């Protein structure tokens, strides 16, 4: 049984079908990259996995005891407004919100877990700092810590390295790789094909319908993969 199983999924945005015939499954411990050009429906698929929009057809099934509200989601930076007064600890702690059904306040266990997660990601010393005073890479680590607080099984990353410099980008990829090695399942939407080639175990290439779904090696040697990564003579870029 896989963590997530999508069967013949079709998704609509503003009443317009943007994607159809999407089928894939994510086994435990997988590292799946979702690639495709802008407007190919990657974000819409993300929203459907998070339960923010309802599929127009087909089904998404969660297995292995995973509940839809227990996905660790790392949004794009643009979603969060600048100049919001919040300490990093407050941001990370809000990831524990899905564990306190019927309770109004956090327990000590929630605070401890948030603190532990921050230490694991090497941002323990930032706890009291204001979120918007941090660098892009630090902010992304804080949001990753929040995502980890919300999940034990599955991370969903939406273009996590957008706007980061190359060094910080490599550090973040290394961190995600480490988490994946430790058993966490990862689904990542990305434009960065080198990361796809190096880290991903499976690739889903979307262009309103799936152009490719399979393991990374096959993808890099397929027609669509060669064209998209620019390893083909007739590169798109």
């Amino acid at each position, binding site marked *: 049984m896989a963590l997530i199983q999508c069967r013949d999924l079709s998704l609509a945005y503003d009443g317009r079908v943007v994607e159809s015939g999407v089928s894939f499954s994510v086994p435990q411990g997988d590292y799946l990259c979702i690639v495709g050009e802008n407007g190919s429906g990657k974000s819409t698929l993300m929203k459907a996995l*998070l*339960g*923010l929009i309802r599929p127009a057809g087909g089904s998404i099934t969660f297995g292995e005891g995973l509940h*839809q*509200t*227990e*996905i660790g*989601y790392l*949004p794009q930076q643009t*979603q*969060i*407004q600048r100049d*919001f*007064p*919040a*300490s990093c600890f*407050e*941001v990370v702690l*809000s*990831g524990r*919100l*899905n564990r306190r059904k019927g309770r*109004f*306040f*956090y327990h000590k266990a929630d605070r401890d877990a948030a603190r532990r997660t921050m230490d694991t990601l090497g941002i323990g010393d930032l706890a*009291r*700092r*204001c979120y918007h*005073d941090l660098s892009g890479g630090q902010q992304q680590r804080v949001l990753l810590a*929040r995502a980890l607080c*919300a999940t034990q099984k599955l991370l969903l990353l939406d273009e996590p390295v957008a706007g980061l410099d190359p060094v910080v980008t490599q550090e973040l990829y290394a961190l995600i790789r480490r988490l994946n090695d430790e058993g966490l399942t990862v689904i990542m939407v990305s434009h960065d094909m080198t990361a796809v080639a190096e880290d991903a175990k499976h690739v889903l290439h979307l262009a309103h319908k799936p152009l490719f779904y399979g393991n990374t090696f096959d993808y890099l040697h397929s027609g669509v993969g060669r064209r998209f990564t620019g390893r083909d003579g007739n590169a798109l870029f």
Partner: protein
Amino acid sequence: MRFSDMFASPLLMQIVLRAMVVGVLVSLCCALLGVNLVLRRFSMIGDGLSHVGFGAIALAAVCGLSQWELEFTLPVVIVAAVLILRMSERSHTQGDAAIALLATGAVAVGSLLYNYSPQRNADICNSLFGSASVLTLTDKDLILSLVLSAVVLALFVLCYHKLFAITFDEVFARATGVHTQAYKTLLAILTAVTIVLGMKLMGAIMISGLVVFPAMSAMRLCKSFRGVVLCSGGLAVVCFVAGFFTACRLSWQTGPTVIAVHTLVFVLVSAGSALAASRLLRRKKV
């Protein structure tokens, strides 16, 4: 009235104390909700709602329901709050314009309705700027104000963490199973109740200042959400008490005096934080 006169007669003191208790509670409610409203870019909602409230009070006065003013205004403004929330969600620009439409429409109809009231100008002035009505706070109004502001404060404290989550990152909150729509509606209703309670004391034009000023000042002083919320509440209480006694002493209107104190605090805090920032910058350069 001299300052010492206020405490000279027990009756006068009781009236003054009553108005102050209600004022402090309403200021506190406004300031706490204000942090969420300002950060969600809903500052104009408070303003729009108070204008709708003005229309409703005029309607109540003309229908001879002045005694039941609060009971009449409350449901009208709550409905307006939920409507404004829905409209501002549907489309950003349309929502902004919708608040302006609703607000000016209500004020226009309200001021026309006052033509049928015996003391038109005094009534309009009172409901716009608050004033002598401070002293006409009845037992019923007092109890209703106390109960409702206690409810607003209790709900705010209980929902504090969820309100933080949906204000900071609504999509993440929804993804982790928070019923964001329900909490946003709750926020709108709490705002409506607070605005209606405060209008009588502060006046329709002044009340949105109580929502915006403390939050804006606090955001310049504190770096964490909890810090901003606590600081905003504290500033609101201090500024209200200072403004209220100044107004009593100088026989000024309460609403404008309190807001003037808030303005002064905001200017001082802004200047202070700008100075601190430039000093920090200079130290970094050296």
